[in-house]
């Protein structure tokens, strides 16, 4: 770690092309035309709603008296709102437990499939990926059937073995049950990202390693994992963002365990309920913004840490 690594050679800046100005103009125009559809949609569907939400979050609305400008009042309210912090704490816990399990499992499957030792690799890959394609309503029905405290499949298996079944939907277990669903859904998704990255590694390197006498595990550890480092970092960042934005799964489990999930299980669910049950769109906008800010900071910190480590490696 302490050995000084020579700084990466600075890629020579290619000499400026002296193209004909008319050609350049035409190319610039073509580029803009090609990018325009994206920009229009991006602006209309992302920037405008975002700016509008920011605008909304600076008002306070009351059923009696209507809306008045209130500056940062909604933000200070959110910072003092125990429901917001509890939700944030819950998704942080979720992040530290669920994400490592999910990504390690995804990496394991990706490596296993890539080693070409699994028979029918294509089918297995599809099966692992399949949950990601299951509509959330179907998933909710399915997990409801599995988790049910009296007649659920898991309970029946436990009872069949003469054991007392845990209630997977009570307040102390429901976070774990949520983690399980998210793992089920997203292991396949992350696996595909990693697997695709593995496929792009040149086979020559493996051959060279084999000639040097490296076994499959050594190849995986010393060549494959470092080679797909960027893909793994990508899945980590996605998972961090996904964890903080946890919404669909608790929203689905709400029907099965309304009191264990409550209105404020995750910050996003809380914002949703504030907007639509409490009719307080302004406060919900403030919470959503605050959450976005926190996610940005954490993603930035994680990325910086990883990059720093990479540089010092």
């Amino acid at each position, binding site marked *: 770690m302490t050995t000084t690594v020579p700084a990466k050679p600075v890629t020579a800046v290619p000499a400026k092309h002296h193209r004909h100005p008319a050609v350049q103009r035409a190319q610039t125009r073509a580029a803009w035309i090609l990018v325009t559809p994206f920009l229009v949609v991006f602006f209309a569907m992302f920037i405008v709603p975002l700016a509008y939400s920011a605008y*909304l979050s600076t008002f306070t609305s009351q*059923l009696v008296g209507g809306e008045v400008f209130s500056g940062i009042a909604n933000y200070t309210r959110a910072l003092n709102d125990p429901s917001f912090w509890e939700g944030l704490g819950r998704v942080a816990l979720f992040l530290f437990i669920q994400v490592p399990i999910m990504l390690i499992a995804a990496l394991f499957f990706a490596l296993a499939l890539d080693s070409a030792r699994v028979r029918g690799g294509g089918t297995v890959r599809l099966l692992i990926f399949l949950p990601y394609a299951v509509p959330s309503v179907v998933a909710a029905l399915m997990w409801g059937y599995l988790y049910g405290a009296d007649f659920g499949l898991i309970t029946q298996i436990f009872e069949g073995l003469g054991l007392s079944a845990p209630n997977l939907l009570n307040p102390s277990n429901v976070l774990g049950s949520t983690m399980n669903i998210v793992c089920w859904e997203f292991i396949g998704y992350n696996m595909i990202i990693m697997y695709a990255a593995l496929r792009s590694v040149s086979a020559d390197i493996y051959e060279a390693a084999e000639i040097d006498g490296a076994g499959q595990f050594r190849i995986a550890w010393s060549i494959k994992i470092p080679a797909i480092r960027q893909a793994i970092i990508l899945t980590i960042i996605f998972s961090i963002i996904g964890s903080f934005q946890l919404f669909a799964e608790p929203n689905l489990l709400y029907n099965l365990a309304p009191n264990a999930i409550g209105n404020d299980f995750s910050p996003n669910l809380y914002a949703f309920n504030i907007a639509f049950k409490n009719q307080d769109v302004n406060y919900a906008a403030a919470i959503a913004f605050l959450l976005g800010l926190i996610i940005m900071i954490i993603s930035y910190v994680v990325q910086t840490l990883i990059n720093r480590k990479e540089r010092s490696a």
Partner: protein
Amino acid sequence: MTLGALAVTAAMALAGCAPTGGGEAAPEGGATEPVTQEQIDEAMSADSKLTFWTWVPDIQKEVDLFEQTYPNIDVEVVNTTGGSQQYPKLRAAIKAGKGTPDVVQIEYQYISSFRQTENLLNLEPYGAGDMEGEFVDWVWNQVADDQGVWAIPQDSGPLGNLYRTDIWQAAGLTSAPETWDQFAEQAQAIRGTGAYISNMPGNDPGQMVGLFWQAGAKPFSYDGQETVSVNLDSEETQKVVSFWQELIQADLVSTDADFNDEWYQGLSRGKYASWQVAAWGPIFLQGTAANTSGLWQAAKIPQWQQGEDVSGNWGGSTSAVLNNSKNPIVAAEFAKFINTDREAALMLANEQFLFPTTTSILEDPEFTGLTSEFYGGQKVNEFFAGVSETVDPEFQWLPFMDYVYSSYNDTLGKAISDKGDMVGALAEWQTKVVDYAEQQGFTVE
């Protein structure tokens, strides 16, 4: 997962298209002088178009009857799938000032919410003022007050008690409980058979409030302006809650969340021996627990005092007209027609199984005369028609029941499902609702 945040942002953008307060929306439209019969005739024969939001399945049949009677009027039915989906959509459309329906289904407990934001047309000048005698009195009190008539009742849910006669027999009991004391005694015997006498869900404030209603509690009131009173932690509500708390903590009543698959299974597999449910319950149960046909019977809801005969209400809807409707006369006539025209109302009762609110249908042999195999040949409609007469006539709601119900899940509901301190949670619920009311600018009395 990431979609969630996007959905919230997008939906919020939809929900608040103009930051002008709902409370100070356009002044109430509509006529102040009674509309004359000539005006009505003229409007009903002219070409016009109405939009109707509802989640009643197959209501197109009743709408067809209307369109046959008034061929120049075209009614577009929009199925909004359910109240919890519809109200946010309706509020968003109202705020946006476009895309609002003319006629809309609204449950009784949400009428004051839309009155408070001044979006409902007062139907009194449109001939609804004279309709009082057509409806059961307590139902009429739900839609009308001294300031106006805010909707036309569609269906209601007087509370009764559906119980499994076979489980009762197995427990050595001969009849359904007449009082809550008997209910508690029988609970022991029923538990001996392995079943629970009943289930008290922690996610169904509607049922709990129905039980409060039956116990004579008056937890809410609203003056139609800016003053509310919240009385959720009263002698009567404490009586109800401590009663259930004892049964729950003694493991005589289960606390499963209702209206999900586990709970359906519980009904059909005999986990729950009875269900204290509204008049819409019998048909619902018939569909859910078809395998138990013939084993059920409908009885009166147990009483707090021996010899009394009081019920409460759980559920039911109305048809309201929004005051920005371009055709208020036609819209009002439509709301009246589908709910009170004999053929349409009978169809709602016998085909959509909406429990009727008009005295004429409640006495109509074509409704009351039906017997049900599922209930061992009992005339369930006739039975609940009798219950409807015993509902306590004075019950009001707050103009923000969404919050009252969602905070229930965090307080009393949570205590129920945790089998914890429910009476204490009642006080917590009260505090939350009062805080919210004050924060929303209401005067709390």
